[in-house]
């Protein structure tokens, strides 16, 4: 278990000061696949480097299984990292790379050889043990980096955007591979990415970060279905925002009409933002929350179609399967009340 409490880090000083981490607290459970998600510069990599020991916080503490590790140098932490560009040792072969950690831990030769063989098998590279690093493809290097970090059986494995250098197909393959490895080894994975899809498919829990702060922590479906802030809603997936004001009648008045919501509303008169995913918007008038508009644009994307509907005051996109609608024709959309999120920032 990793307990991170009130970590703050400021780089530079004076006018150039940049707050990389702003009072960040999070607890990561044993055996969890935990993802730090955010755009570049949000502080996710700084947080990862702090857990690894490459960066010291200005204030705050990191505990691993109850033991404070905040100021331990990297080589004293039972934590291994898969670096973004792999950082494989070019002067050693595959097996020597994978065995490096165990060797540094002073394990005997026999045990090292056995563990290296077992770990290479785990990442399906046992046939390449004697290869030089520059003879490997990008995907193979990725697996060697994984094996090298897994071989010493760390308590925590840190992964710094490890899939970003791979092409689309390989990335898909490695995503399920990583998930499998995490389940098989039972090691806590802390994964850093800016790719929301990667985060949603692999993680047990996600922490969405922006400007040095954690905005929301939750399971992928919580984050997707109930974003706590506009930034989270916008960063993950596609979403429509509709500005409005809470009315006395418990509805939200928008430029295109009054909308009922099932989520709790703040006091009457408060400005709020309603958010709804395109796949939850239904074409056609069906029940409450129907808004009349015209079909402005139709975009076909293979497994479905996105309809851009002009509601006068605002535009809304609606994702649907088949779309027998003509551009320019009148089209109503229905926003199911239970699908409308109420955001207040």
């Amino acid at each position, binding site marked *: 278990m990793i307990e991170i409490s009130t970590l703050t880090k400021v780089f530079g000083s004076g006018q150039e000061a940049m707050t990389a981490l702003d009072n960040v607290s999070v607890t990561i459970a044993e055996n969890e696949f935990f993802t730090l998600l955010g755009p570049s510069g949000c502080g996710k990599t700084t947080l990862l480097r702090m857990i690894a020991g490459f960066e010291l916080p200005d204030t705050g503490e990191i505990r691993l299984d109850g033991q404070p590790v905040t100021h331990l*140098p990297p080589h004293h932490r039972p*934590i291994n990292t898969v670096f973004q560009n792999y*950082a494989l*040792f070019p002067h050693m072969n595959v097996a020597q790379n994978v065995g*490096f950690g165990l060797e540094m831990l002073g394990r005997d030769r026999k045990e090292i050889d056995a563990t290296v063989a077992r770990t290479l098998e785990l990442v399906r590279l046992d046939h390449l043990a004697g290869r030089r690093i520059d003879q490997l493809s990008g995907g193979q290097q990725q697996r060697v980096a994984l094996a090298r970090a897994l071989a010493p059986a760390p308590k925590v494995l840190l992964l710094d955007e490890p899939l970003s250098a791979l092409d689309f197909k390989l990335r898909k393959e490695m995503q399920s591979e990583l998930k499998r490895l995490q389940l098989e080894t039972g090691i806590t994975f802390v994964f850093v990415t800016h790719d929301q899809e990667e985060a949603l498919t692999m993680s047990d829990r996600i922490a969405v970060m922006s400007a040095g702060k954690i905005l929301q922590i939750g399971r992928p479906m919580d984050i997707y279905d109930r974003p706590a802030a506009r930034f989270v809603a916008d960063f993950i997936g596609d979403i429509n925002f509709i500005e409005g004001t809470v009315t006395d009648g418990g509805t939200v008045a928008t430029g295109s009409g009054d909308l009922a919501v099932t989520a709790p509303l703040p006091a009457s008169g408060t400005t709020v933002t309603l958010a709804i995913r395109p796949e939850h918007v239904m074409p056609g008038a069906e029940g409450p929350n129907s808004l009349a508009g015209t079909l402005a644009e139709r975009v076909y994307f293979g497994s479905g179609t996105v309809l851009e509907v002009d509601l006068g005051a605002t535009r809304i996109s609606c994702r649907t399967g088949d779309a027998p609608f003509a551009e320019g024709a009148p089209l109503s959309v229905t926003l199911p009340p239970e699908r409308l999120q109420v955001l207040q920032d």
Partner: protein
Amino acid sequence: MADATETRKTPRAKAFDLRRQPGFAAAAWACIIFLYAPIVVLIVFSFNDNRSVVRWTEFSLRWYTEAFANEGIQKATWMSLKVAFVATALATTFATMAALATTRVARFRGQGIVFAIINQPLMIPEIVTAVATLSFFSLIKQATGWQGVGFLMLAHTVFCIPFAFLPIRARLQDMTITLEQAAADLYATPWAAFRRVTLPLMAPGILAGATLAFVVSLDDVIITLMIAGPGETTLPIYILGQIRRGITPEINAVSTLLLGLSLLLVSLTFLLGRKRSRA
């Protein structure tokens, strides 16, 4: 107007080939001939069976045999090698430390000044360094009474440092620091990370730096001329002394050997470096 010239220039710039410019080939050949013709002549006449260095008679190894038998040359060679070895070892060690200290730490204020200070001997005219070192050493010698070849070795070490420093630093700058972080992440102590990762990877740079330092030390005249005491004649100084009495084929032979040694060292470094970077 500006646009018009732009568009006219672009297709020409694409087809531009420096090698096809008028005068390029002539200039290149002139450079090559002026550089290498004298050396070729020197080598050829070192194999001439005649005392003259301008008139060829017959092939012979006579001057090499005489050079090897010459006690003055023997002593000078031995002195040169001794000084070069010590200076190279010391200069390379210091240069390695300096290169690590300027690349493997967080950026600090005055880093540029440190860099300039290390490379200073390259900028200052050698004669100035020589005179300054001479008077400084005289002061020390007077105050302490110390004598010996150590002073010459020290002087050589000093001017060899920047030559060793540059290739080592270049190599370190090419190496990402993530590799050392990866080693630390995998439980390597700072010393183990240095020995197992940094040092093997920077070895080609160290080798190149050491070779350069060795050749520079072997070749030095001005500083050595000032600093060397009696009995501390190095090979270049010996050659210089002999030439005052006219060029002999024996000097040609010695020079050819010196050239051969330099070439051998440089090729060796190149080959080893290439092998290393592939491994």
